[in-house]
């Protein structure tokens, strides 16, 4: 369960998150929608502990994010994040990029995961040697490699064509159906409708 209470965040003088409170149930697939600049990516970053809010509180499974003793360990064990731009490490191949998120997993387990996501054949290629769709699937593989309880994705289809976007959302649906909580920020209303719930944001506030 994710509970956010009265979140506020500024970029300089601009109040980009303006008192947002929300709850997301375990295993729920939630789509955050809104126009560009509405604050959905910032909210996603805050909920995923990648950004500290200027004020407000977040509790994940009852734990306050402000009093976490080891936020890195929490991130490693609880959270996966898919970025809009895949952000694969350029000097590592696809398999090494994915293994980076789950150092305790064996090489076979990583290969199995890549096969499951349909990118086993490109495991030894570098990020700049594969297509955009394959890169994004590799980024998803990296995000789920550590078996997170919550998966966050920021515009994961922003740079993909409609066919690849569908495939990514099919994959998310499957991940959600397996019990992972999923929070996806997207401006694509058609894809958002495949989530269990849509949360719309405008000017840093829930609509």
């Amino acid at each position: 369960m994710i509970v956010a209470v009265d979140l506020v965040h500024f970029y300089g003088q601009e109040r980009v998150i303006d008192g947002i409170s929300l709850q997301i149930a375990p295993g729920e697939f939630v789509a955050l929608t809104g126009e560009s600049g509405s604050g959905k990516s910032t909210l996603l970053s805050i909920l995923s502990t990648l950004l500290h809010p200027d004020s407000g509180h977040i509790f994940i499974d009852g734990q306050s994010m402000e009093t976490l003793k080891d936020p890195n360990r929490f991130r490693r064990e609880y959270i996966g994040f898919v970025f809009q731009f895949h952000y694969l490490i350029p000097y590592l191949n696809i398999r090494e990029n994915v293994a980076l998120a789950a150092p305790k997993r064996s090489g076979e387990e990583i290969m199995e995961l890549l096969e499951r996501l349909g990118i086993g054949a490109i495991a030894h290629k570098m990020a700049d040697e594969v297509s955009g769709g394959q890169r994004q699937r590799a980024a998803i593989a990296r995000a789920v490699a550590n078996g997170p309880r919550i998966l966050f994705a920021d515009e994961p289809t922003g740079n993909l064509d409609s066919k690849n976007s569908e495939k990514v959302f099919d994959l998310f649906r499957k991940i959600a159906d397996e019990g992972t909580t999923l929070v996806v920020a997207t401006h694509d209303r058609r894809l958002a409708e495949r989530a269990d719930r849509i949360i719309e944001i405008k000017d840093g506030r829930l609509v």
Partner: protein
Amino acid sequence: MFIHAFKSLRANPMRTLLVFGSLTVSVTAVFLINAIAHGIVSSYSTILRSDGDLIVTQAKISDTFFSDVDTALIPKIRKIPGVEKVTAMIVGASPVERLPIVAVYGLSPERMERYRLLRGHYPGPGEVMVGRSIAGRLPMPALSIGDRRFRIAGVFGSDTGFESGGVVLTLKDAGTLFHKKASMLFVDLDGRVPAEKVIAAVAALSPKIEVKSTESFVKNYHQFRIIETSADVISLIALLMGLISIASIMSVTMLERKYEFGILRALGYGRGVIVGRILLETLWIGVAAYLTALAAALGILWILRRLPALQGYVDGIITLPMAVEVGLAALGITVLGAILPAWKSSGIDPMELITRGSRA
């Protein structure tokens, strides 16, 4: 992690080359400065240590070159209980033929035999023995030292650069050249009387002399300390320049790699792990640069030793303790140069790192 570090270095050849280059140049400079300084100190102290337990010089002089000791003291010193042998030496420098400066040693007959005769015989009055390093550059069979002509009696070899690049003549001839009796007297002890007692007895012979044990003389010789301190200061500057170069290259690199650090932080890697990864990368470079610098310094010293123009005087020596010290200093500046920018760059929120990094 080791393989990742290596891959990262290979992926950024320009950055790797710049850090490697900066470090190699400064470490080579440090090696050369210290090796040459050490060579100078070692050469001269070897000459001083070669004979005698005590050294007698003129009192209150800053350099042995200016010392003038009366050789009339020699028979008096020989009579002191505990003294086995007394020899004398004049140390000077003079133009010799076309060579602008050559070390000139005037020796009492007993000291001559320490020099390895390669051909000819030891010099008598009006004769000179020339060192191997300069023999090929001097005319045969006679040469001029200052305004005097000497017949070349032989050629000698020595492991000390200052000697093999110099000339040896009798104490009397050197005395005429430099207008003095002796620069130093060397006193050998027979071990039956404590050295302190002999020192006191010799010192009591004349208020114009100063007597020290050879070890104490070498250790406290002012010129050595000036050379060593200068070498340390120049080395420090070279190291600081290396440190600044590495830190500036690493700062720019860290800016480029912020998003990578952001990703690692997002994946749950702590700041320490990220700094550790960067350290590992720079340590790879540090070790490679150190080994290259060591090889380069040894090569340059080998060339300098053989350059005819230097007459064998630049006889740099890299000792094991020096190699270890410079190695530690090199690794130290590598770590410092990398750790500060890496620590600074990896400390903010992952998402800020990613967005700032992708803008960079």
